[in-house]
């Protein structure tokens, strides 16, 4: 501490901090040192998971990351399926993809809205939060829940496509495409937005790799890396989409990477609805366990009743590693089973936690007013990081 600098604590009670704190050292208006202080919404999902049965963990893992819930759910189920040695039938794989992509659009709108209000554009914030509702409604139609769907279950998904879903989805996508043009005029190409984001918070490719950054932030720095392509899961192998990569690595590139990912996700949803095969939505092994009378009911309504075996899932001794590309980046699960109904160790690495590095790395050298611009552009979500 010299006499020139002042220390500033931004958060956790601050309109621009979220559930975290920045310890900032300022020299005039320039940040010389920044360190994120996280953990304000930590609840130790990993420890809680050790006390729960395997099926109970499925809803647990989606709680930390509320804008993006299908992806963490799917990631965990993939690990569990690896332990159990089963794989979901093709129709279920397509439905998983559908839910994951609709959720990705929802999460990206959420992120854009937060960036909007961080920069002071209340309109972008209100619009994005209203338009995220479109995808919430769509997923509600599919899953019956609004935010925490717990849609993906071991061996399949909870519900089949409801009647009229295709038309509803097409309508929603057309609306969002129209809306994106409005956003472009008002927010993305607004001269003030551009002035605030272009060239601010530049993350170089080498640094992005060294710091292990994930998701759109990594791709906006020129690294061609998307788990959906690298290690295809669900139905991504059959689908045609582009991995959005930008070279600039600044805040504006990160914003636009998300915008373009929304467009790609729309493309995927359309393909899924086009190509989705007929068939069961639950793995045969479990489907057989359901009593015939209930099975008939399931076939009529398309809504699954869990087989009793789910309550006592006992994977054999071993380890499983799975990963999915969430909206904010890669979710990694590492589950160690000792053959009991509860995991011996449950490890969940969330994208926001791996992106924590960006605060300490990007903020120094920028102005105080750039904190919200950079914070908003990396789509950091404190509960997702704290777990």
């Amino acid at each position, binding site marked *: 501490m010299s006499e020139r600098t002042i220390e500033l604590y931004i958060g956790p009670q601050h*309109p*621009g901090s979220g559930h975290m704190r920045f310890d900032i050292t300022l020299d005039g208006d320039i940040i010389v040192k920044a360190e994120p202080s996280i953990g304000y919404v930590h609840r130790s999902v990993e420890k809680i998971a050790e006390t729960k049965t395997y099926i109970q963990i499925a809803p647990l893992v989606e709680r930390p990351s509320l804008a993006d819930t299908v992806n963490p759910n799917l990631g965990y189920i993939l690990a569990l399926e690896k332990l159990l040695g089963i794989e979901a039938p093709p129709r279920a794989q397509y439905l998983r993809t559908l839910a994951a992509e609709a959720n990705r659009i929802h999460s990206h709108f959420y992120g854009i809205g937060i960036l909007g209000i961080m920069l*002071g554009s*209340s*309109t972008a914030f209100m619009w994005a939060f209203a338009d995220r509702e479109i995808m919430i409604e769509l997923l509600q139609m599919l899953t019956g829940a609004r935010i925490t769907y717990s849609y993906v279950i071991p061996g399949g998904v909870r519900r089949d496509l409801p009647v009229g879903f295709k038309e509803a989805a097409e309508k929603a996508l057309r609306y969002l495409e129209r809306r994106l043009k409005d956003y472009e005029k008002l927010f993305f190409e607004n001269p003030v937005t551009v002035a605030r984001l272009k060239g601010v918070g530049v993350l170089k490719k080498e640094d992005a790799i060294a710091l292990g950054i994930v998701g759109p932030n990594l791709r906006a720095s020129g690294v061609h890396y998307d788990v959906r392509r690298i290690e295809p899961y669900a139905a991504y192998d059959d689908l045609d989409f582009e991995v959005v990569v930008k070279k600039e690595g600044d805040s504006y590139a990160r914003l636009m990477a998300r915008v373009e990912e929304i467009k790609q996700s729309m493309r995927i949803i359309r393909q899924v609805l086009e190509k989705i095969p007929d068939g069961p939505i639950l793995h045969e092994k479990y489907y057989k366990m359901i009593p015939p009378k209930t099975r008939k009911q399931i076939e009529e309504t398309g809504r699954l009743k869990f087989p009793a075996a789910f309550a006592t899932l006992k994977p054999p001794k071993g380890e499983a590693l799975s990963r999915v590309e969430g909206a904010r980046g890669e979710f990694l699960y590492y589950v160690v089973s000792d053959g009991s109904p509860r995991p011996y160790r449950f490890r969940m690495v969330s994208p926001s936690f791996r992106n924590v590095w960006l605060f300490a790395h990007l903020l120094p050298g920028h102005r105080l007013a*750039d904190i919200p611009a950079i914070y908003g552009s990396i789509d950091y979500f404190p509960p997702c990081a704290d777990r």
Partner: protein
Amino acid sequence: MQVSEIISWLINLLFYKPEVFCPIFYPGLVTILALLIFIIWLERKIAAKVQLRYGPLYVTRKAGGILQLLADLLRYMFQEPIIPKTVDKIAFIAGPVLLFATAYVPAALLPATAEFTGLRSELSLLAVLALLTLAPIFDIIIGWGSNNKFSLIGSMREGYIVMSYEIPMFLSTLAIAMVYGSLNIVEIVEMQSRCWGILLNPIAAATFLLVALISTARFPFEIAEAETEIVMGPYTEYSGILYGLLMGASYVKFYVLSMLFALLFLGGWHPSITWLEKIHPAAPGLVVFIKALIIMVFGIFLRAVYPRFRVDQAIRVGWHLLFMLSMLSIAYSLAVIWLVG
């Protein structure tokens, strides 16, 4: 007899003496309070319309919630203003009061019409400008007195911004005053009966409008109070009526600058509606008010469109753009004088 005499004397004093009527009613305090309630309501309504919301609605639902702001004002009045232990008490309490007062006083000096004006002076324009420059000082004083880092940073930002817009403000007003060869607002308006100031010197008009936006913290220049950066800037520690005064002050200042813009560039009370004079001698001045209102609506609409600039970008706008523009406007005025004479 005595009582009726007193009443008629009082009515005459309050309503027909410009020295009293102007500061109290129009364009002074009463107009300002009514306008505050209306303009903040309108700001919220316009933003809500753009943002697919309703905005204020439930207080007087039939009138679109227009009394919501009155309710808010009452709440501010009766809420306890919390004064933290660590603040400089005199600066903390006197600051908002003086800030509001210095923002309001220039309004009292503005003329309502050619005959009906509170201040008769050859230098009335200069007086208004000089008083306008006082207000930011109190912004800085309350930032210092609050003893809070966010407040301090906010008032430092205010200080930097003031420095960058003040010179363009003076230069652009002087440019238009040069064209008319007068520093008397009434005379300037009278000379605009043939040609509005905005046509005589559009550069000065544009500069003045931008300055008005910057100096009253309209978007995209809402920088000293940037919420996601420094909470509420200089106003962080305030609550209750003191906070209400601070919030009101920037609107009052915006009102004064809009009125000044209407008077200097938009022809003031021209075209004058003479039959209004039968109602009240100040009534023809409503033309100025309507013009100023249009300017204010434009200003508040920007909130729905723009994010905010960074402080260095705003200062750059001040020195690189506005300063240059104001110099240009002086040159333009000289050219106009040389050509037209």
